[in-house]
């Protein structure tokens, strides 16, 4: 694994996302967006890392991200997603949801649309904590426990689920085109089906035992019933939403809050997590055997770097690296991706072979040769 260097950017990075690439042109990821937090004046910025295809010698210098443009943002950027190639949606600590348009020809950013007090309390602002989009639909969640559905280019709100949760909803993700999954600060996953008119979740899942707040959730790219979550205690949980009320697997991943979990979009045997404890872990199951394995129904002991686990698991008929278990062939490897302990890694994103992450140490790390 090549060493990755820090680029210090004078702002604490709360979110970072790769711009989606079009597979038809065999593009490599070259542009990512970041959002800052805890500044007097927060910003969203677009960065470019140039193209691959240069000589290996110059790789280290070429990899350094260059700032293309930036724009002031009201409030902390609590979440950020690309709506399409040119537009991003941000969730702000003022409760606003904003669509920014990135004009690539003259490197300017303008506000395309804003819903100013989307999330609010009766007498105060409520931070909007998560946003997910599937163009043109945008779904946001906030500390006020509301779920709101917007459509880009449409003024008002399409649908609001008031009081969807009595606690803060920390993250949201699509399960299917009409279903979303939210996680909250009392440790519950809730499934919402938009085809139903009622304002209650179609399913609630939670851990038995302590109700640890969950901070992040991600769905397996190919298997829509498999979901990974991370929470306050740094445990990585993998759930099967079709069956059971409890997670299929629990792994001790980090020693502090896990802020983001991502399956690799095209190679889902790889999973990435980042945490308040300053580490970024790369989880890899070996899927060479016919029943690639990963999991056990139960708790694991803590993971060491590069340790291989031999899980004891039951037999599952579905073939999935994260759920099925064949003890003899099981292998799971974890490795640290950052050179040394830093302040909290708040966000990461991975696309093809490129990984970008942002920290509270005001540094961005880009790794262009992730072994996936």
């Amino acid at each position, binding site marked *: 694994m090549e060493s990755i260097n*820090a680029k*210090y*950017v*004078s*702002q*604490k990075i*709360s979110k970072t996302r790769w711009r989606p690439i079009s597979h038809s042109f065999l593009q490599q990821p070259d542009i990512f967006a970041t959002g800052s*937090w*805890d*500044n*007097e004046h927060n910003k969203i910025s677009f960065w470019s890392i140039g193209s691959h295809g240069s000589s290996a010698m110059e790789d280290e210098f070429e990899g350094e991200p260059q700032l293309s443009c930036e724009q002031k943002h009201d409030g*902390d950027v*609590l979440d950020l997603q690309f709506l399409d190639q040119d537009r991003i949606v941000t969730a702000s*600590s003022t409760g606003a949801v904003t669509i920014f348009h990135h004009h690539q020809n003259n490197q300017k950013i303008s506000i395309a649309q804003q819903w100013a007090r989307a999330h609010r*309390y*009766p007498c*105060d602002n*409520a*931070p909007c*904590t998560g946003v997910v989009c599937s163009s043109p639909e945008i779904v946001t969640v906030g*500390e*006020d*426990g509301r779920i709101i559905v917007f459509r880009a280019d449409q003024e008002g709100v399409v649908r609001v689920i008031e*009081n969807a*949760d*009595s*606690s*803060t909803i920390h993250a949201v993700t699509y399960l299917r085109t009409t279903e979303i999954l939210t996680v*909250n*600060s*009392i440790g*519950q996953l*809730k499934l919402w089906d938009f085809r139903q008119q009622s304002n209650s*979740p179609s399913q*609630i899942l*939670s851990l*038995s*035992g*302590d*109700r640890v*707040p969950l901070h992040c959730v991600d769905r397996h790219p190919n298997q829509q019933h498999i979901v990974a979550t991370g929470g*306050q205690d740094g445990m990585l949980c993998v759930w099967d939403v079709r069956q059971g009320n409890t997670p299929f697997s629990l792994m001790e991943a980090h020693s*502090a*809050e896990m802020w983001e979990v991502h399956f690799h979009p095209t190679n889902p045997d790889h999973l990435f997590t980042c945490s*308040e404890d300053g580490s970024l872990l790369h989880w890899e199951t070996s899927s060479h055997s016919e029943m690639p394995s990963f999991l056990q129904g139960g708790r694991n002991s803590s993971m060491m770097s590069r340790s291989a686990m031999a899980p004891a698991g039951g037999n599952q008929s579905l073939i999935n690296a994260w759920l099925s278990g064949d003890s003899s062939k099981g292998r799971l490897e974890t490795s640290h991706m950052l050179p*040394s*302990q*830093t*302040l*909290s890694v708040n966000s990461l994103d991975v696309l093809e072979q490129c990984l970008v992450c942002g920290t*509270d*140490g*005001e*540094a961005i790390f880009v790794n262009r040769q992730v072994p996936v």
Partner: protein
Amino acid sequence: MEEVDVEPVVTKIPAVSDGKHMGFAWGPGDILVYETLHKASGCSFIHEVRKDEDIYSPILRKLFNESHHIFVGLQTIREDLPSKSRKPQFVSISKNYRSVIRACMEELQQVAVCSVLSQVSILLAIELIWNLCEVLFIDAAPAGSLLLHLLDWVRLHKADVDEKARDVLQSDSPAEHRDYWDVVMSYVLQGRLDEARQMLMKQATLQPAARNMYKVMDTLLSKMPFFNPSGTQTLTEFDVKWRHWHEEVDRCLQDNSFASNKHLEIICKLLLGDEDTLLEHKELLGTWYHFLVTRLLFCHPTVKPAELHYYAQSCMTMFLDSRSVPEPLDSILLAAFEFDIHQVIKDCSIALNNWWFVAHLTDLLDHCKLLQSHNLHFGSNLREFLLLEYAAGLFTHHSLWQLAVDYFDHCPEFGRVYLELQIERVPLDTERKALKVLRICEQRQMSEQVRSICKIMAMRALRNNRLGSALSWSIRAKDAAFATLISERFLQDYCTRGTFSDLDLIDNLGPAMLLSDRLTFLGKYREFHKLYEEKRFTEAAKLLLSLMTAKIAPRSFWMTLLTDALPLLEQKEEEDIEVTKVELLRLALARNLAMAIVKEGTVGT
């Protein structure tokens, strides 16, 4: 009271009119000032006066972040390793710090706005001082290598020579460029003799008649001995060789070998370290410390560290005019040559408006075990004092407070107290930030602060009617009292409305139920309702009974419980369970009901 080291600086507050009184209040990094008449206050403004503008500069922020990373790495160097293997580590850390300063300087220079120029010159001075401290204190080179390091130091900080040389070489006829001889002299003054020889060759080709003279000079320049620290030659042997060479140069001068060429003669005199000739080239030298190093190079290359300050003092006096006042930088460098570390730190603290430099340098020197324990009036040692001042300043910044936490961690005596006081004052706008602050407190077992932060967040949630959030904060703080408060809210809601709000929360309390009695009661009561709705009357009845007998129900709720019991009592008993208890219940009901009606007059909440 001690004497003041330096006259206090006067800052005018522009918005306060002349002659008016001002009231003030100290803050951690600034002062709040307001205009006042002693009787009535007529002003509507409060002014914030900040001494340190640097932490708000976006480019300098990189300095603070990167150096924080280096600082934390330095603290983890193991103490039990022998000093021999630690010295190279310290030197490399010192070089890291310096490269961070240089990177910032380069970025600032690219911005090139006049407000930034003073920052650039300050950073230049800082790097100069740090480099010298690295050479003298951390690397602590002995005689022989000491001069070589000092030469490197001077060369690094006199970059204009290369620029001039580039101009000269790129011109059509370098040997006739007006700066040509300046460049050659500068190379000689810096001990870059090979480059001087290359330059001289260009002149030599132009003057074939004087070829012999140039050959002699070339030989002299090529034969000057330089000490090789990793070689086998001892210092004494080197000294002998050097004296031979010195005598040879002197002979050439006495022989008038260079009499016909004024420039070569000057170079010869320079090689002999002739003071007057050196002083004639003040503009080429630029600074007294360059003069010092050059003079040592050509007069006394085996100078010992302890002898440095004699030469330094005399060079400074000779170089500077008698009228000009030594600048702060000069006295700091002089103190460094005198190996007076404390004076260096003290002068730097006064001259700079930000504790960054002295805090990090002192910390590094302390790790090298170079600071004697120095009793300050308030008990902690110098290193800790400076780190605390620096970190306290960082804490006032809206973003950089997170860095300050690590600095406080490594101040063993007062760091924790400072952190406890400061961390409670971080504004908590979002839950995300509160979680980070909480994590910092929990990792350091600051349970007081954890409780207080959780209470703030829980109250806020409660005010906004986010009962689930409030409960999750009280669970985190293990705050039973607050959990009770929340349960009371739920129960009140139920009594007024007849239904429960936030069922998703109450139905899924899990083990958190045990945090407080009231909460347990709430959970169980809700369970009772669920059982009743599912028409599992036997179990419902059992549960209700246990609720009443367990005495965890609040008194205000007894009426409600009894009312709930009524329909159950009317149910046909399907099983013969605890008939006696039920009988008792009937009795108690009758009596209680009677008593309640008599006592309280009306039934109702």
